[in-house]
């Protein structure tokens, strides 16, 4: 069977040769867009890699896996997994000068599935990522008030007290779950579209459209702001944070190393997964962006620089976040202790100032000795600083609940709120540029849109379509859908695609050819480190992470956390099982992008075999005539 033989002899015909590349470079001919300068390219890539995950996923992982000790697996895997994969994507994109579908179909037509898989994942991620942007915009719009709306509970209908749902939980929780999301108690109730969220959703997509309407011509300008502003805001927050009481508690909590965590395999898995997702590999966006570079751009240097910047930003953001978290935890701890002290003073009619934070434990102990039943009846809260520090410090909970609460305790809260949400918006928007690039360019390569359509029309149509599909996420149950998409659409398929990418380049494209390409582009062959990591180490790491992830996901029953005011442990989220029809959705999310690799290969193979005989003669003709002009003209002159 001919299609099983992986012959790549027609490779040269599908990819530009070195002479053609030099010609393109020197004459600046060709209609592919180009970066105005290197800074734009670097800022775009940094923006794509540095996203919300650096702010709300990495600090949590760091703190939960042994603080400072987590740096060790993180850095090791950054070097062994992140940098080689990044260099590979940059180099192959720069060499083949096409988007993800174009690159993989050039390497081998059967590998087009990798490009299609990348496109599907980018599409799914874009859908829900922009909803997070809509949430950020909602909070941003609401920050322009003197008392932030999430700082106090609203009064109930007949003005006798505070709204019960809010009183039982907290103002920030209530504002997030009720006034922003208006969540339903489970994923089956859709709850209908929430009009205020629809407005924010539409404005998020409209803003994105303006920035991407002309491809890198417009995004290249936008990244000057979206990629640099977050760093400025982080620095401002760091300075503000360090002057607040209790901030150093947070930083200490974050970085206190616990070496025992290194023995735990989950730590290494989480570190590997974080490095992988943090670099936005396998989305196709990095390939596209690199293809707009000049041929002799030093992609090796770029890969190393970007990795360092990404890692450093993660650590920096973690520090800043934890200064603020430390401040909040200390405030809550102080409030808790003061509340207990007041209760004691009131019950025992002791003069004020008799019981302070310092002697609280002694006094409580002595009172417990003399009046144990009374003390029991008081239901004093246990105040533990560490439990406040570990509350809800990941994902949307961090940004919209914990951090917003911390902001309400800072003086001049609206200013900090505005700054924080602008920063989140910029972080997310710059990542969206990469996601959308990974959708638009393959669509153009596949010829889905007519060639006569201008770039703006293509971008506009895609944005409108994504906006409409994304309305799933702005209904009452939208939050649950979003975490579903995040867990299944944005995780397993990427691992499969990245593994196939490495194998495809190293073994199908040929590592020797790849080495020669890099020598042509940057002037020297990649050294031993790259050879070992590309050939063995990185694919092995990817494979291990994929297997473990897959096994964990398949073994556990998929559960989700619901906000249900009727549940028993009310303020704590209720763990619910997904209904059975969700499994079909999970299969679509995780299966289709992942399966697109083998399915496209089979499809192409079958099509090849069917129409092979007819096409063979025509194809050969065209190849000899079109690809060898020099030969014919020489013969011409000789004759």
């Amino acid at each position: 069977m001919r299609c099983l033989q992986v012959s790549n002899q027609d490779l040269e015909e599908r990819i530009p040769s070195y002479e053609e590349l030099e010609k393109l470079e020197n004459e600046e001919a060709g209609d592919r867009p180009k970066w105005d300068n290197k800074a734009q390219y670097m800022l775009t890539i940094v923006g794509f890699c540095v996203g919300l995950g650096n702010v709300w996923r990495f600090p949590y992982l760091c703190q939960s896996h042994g603080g400072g000790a987590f740096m060790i697996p993180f850095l090791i895997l950054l070097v062994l997994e992140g940098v080689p994969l990044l260099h590979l994507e940059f180099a192959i994109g720069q060499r083949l000068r096409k988007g993800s579908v174009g690159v993989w179909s050039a390497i081998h037509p059967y590998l087009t599935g990798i490009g299609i898989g990348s496109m599907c994942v980018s599409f799914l991620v874009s859908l829900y990522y922009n909803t997070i942007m809509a949430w950020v915009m909602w909070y941003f719009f609401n920050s322009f008030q003197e008392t932030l709306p999430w700082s106090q509970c609203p009064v109930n209908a007949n003005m006798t007290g505070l709204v019960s749902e809010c009183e039982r939980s907290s103002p920030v929780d209530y504002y997030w779950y009720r006034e922003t999301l208006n969540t339903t108690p489970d994923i089956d109730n859709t709850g209908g579209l929430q009009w205020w969220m629809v407005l924010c959703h539409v404005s998020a997509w409209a803003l994105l459209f303006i920035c991407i309407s002309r491809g890198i011509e417009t995004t290249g300008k936008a990244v000057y702001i979206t990629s640099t502003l977050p760093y400025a805001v982080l620095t401002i927050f760091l300075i503000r944070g360090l002057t607040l009481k209790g901030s150093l508690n947070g930083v200490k909590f974050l970085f206190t190393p616990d070496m025992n965590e290194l023995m735990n395999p989950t730590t290494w898995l989480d570190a590997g997964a974080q490095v992988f997702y943090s670099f936005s590999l396998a989305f196709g966006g990095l390939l596209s962006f690199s293809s707009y570079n000049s041929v002799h751009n030093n992609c090796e240097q770029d890969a190393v620089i970007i990795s360092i910047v990404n890692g450093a930003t993660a650590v920096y953001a973690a520090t800043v976040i934890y200064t603020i978290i430390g401040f909040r935890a200390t405030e809550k701890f102080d409030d808790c202790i003061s509340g207990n002290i007041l209760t004691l003073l009131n019950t025992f009619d002791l003069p004020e100032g008799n019981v302070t934070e310092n002697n609280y434990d002694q006094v409580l102990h002595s009172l417990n000795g003399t009046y144990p039943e009374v003390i029991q009846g008081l239901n004093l809260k246990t105040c533990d600083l560490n439990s406040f520090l570990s509350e809800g410090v990941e994902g949307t909970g961090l940004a919209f609940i914990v951090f917003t609460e911390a902001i309400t305790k800072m003086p001049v809260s609206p200013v900090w709120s505005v700054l924080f949400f602008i920063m989140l918006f910029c972080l997310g928007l710059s990542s969206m540029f990469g996601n959308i690039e990974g959708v638009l360019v393959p669509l153009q390569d596949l010829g889905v849109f007519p060639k006569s359509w201008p770039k703006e029309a293509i971008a506009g149509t895609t944005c409108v379509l994504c906006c409409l599909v994304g309305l799933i996420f702005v209904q009452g149950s939208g939050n649950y859908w979003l975490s579903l998409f995040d867990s299944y659409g944005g995780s397993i398929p990427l691992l499969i695609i990245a593994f196939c990418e490495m194998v495809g380049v190293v073994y199908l494209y040929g590592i020797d050819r790849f080495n020669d390409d890099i020598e042509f582009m940057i002037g020297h062959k990649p050294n031993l480190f790259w050879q070992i990591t590309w050939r063995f180490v990185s694919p092995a790491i990817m494979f291990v992470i994929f297997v473990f992830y897959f096994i964990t996901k398949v073994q556990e029953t998929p559960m989700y956390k619901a906000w249900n005011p009727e549940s028993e442990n009310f303020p704590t989220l209720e763990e619910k099982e997904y209904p059975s029809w969700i499994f079909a959705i999970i299969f679509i999310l995780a299966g289709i992008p992942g399966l697109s690799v083998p399915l496209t290969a089979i499809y192409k193979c079958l099509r090849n075999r069917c129409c092979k005989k007819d096409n063979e003669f025509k194809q050969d003709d065209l190849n000899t005539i079109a690809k060898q002009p020099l030969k014919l003209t020489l013969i011409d002159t000789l004759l």
Partner: protein
Amino acid sequence: MVSKTLNAPNGYKVRISLKTALGEDAYEWNQSEMFFFQATMAFAMRRHFQMETYNVDNIILCVQTSRVSFWFVVTSPDNTTMLIPKADVEKAVRMSRHRINNAFLLSDRTLEFLGIYPTLAAPVNPDTPPWLIVFGVVIGAVCVGIIALLISSLLQKRRKEKGMTEDGQDEEDMQVKGVENGINLDGTYNRGFTDDDRFTKL
């Protein structure tokens, strides 16, 4: 010593937290302050019932503790053995709560009448929610941006088409002259060596 709950159906317990309210500037709670309290309560009763007969003696205090808490009852000015019912006292206190608080430089939280809950402040409901205003501004800017973008791309297109029809000949010459490294070569290009005949004519 655990604080007692008196069986006083018409009395109210008052709790004062001076240090919490005033910190360093807290004044000392002594008998004169107690007298001031009696006077304030008498004032509140006068104000509510609009009877000028209430006096300091009508406010009876007991069970004073160092927490600074005490109980008080109000006797009727006409008959000192009769106590004013709890509900009336509550109404009087509610009416003059603000004045009572200010007299002692305290607040609802630091001068507590146990059993009389502070009325909640009515929520301020602006006509247009502030977020809609900001949203309007942002969306307006976005619309202006989109329109500017579409207009500029239309203009670009028109300029390109004009350029093509007017100097089509010049453009061809430019291409043929050869642009090396962005510098136009001077001199005449020898058309004998153009490769516009890539394919041998049959």
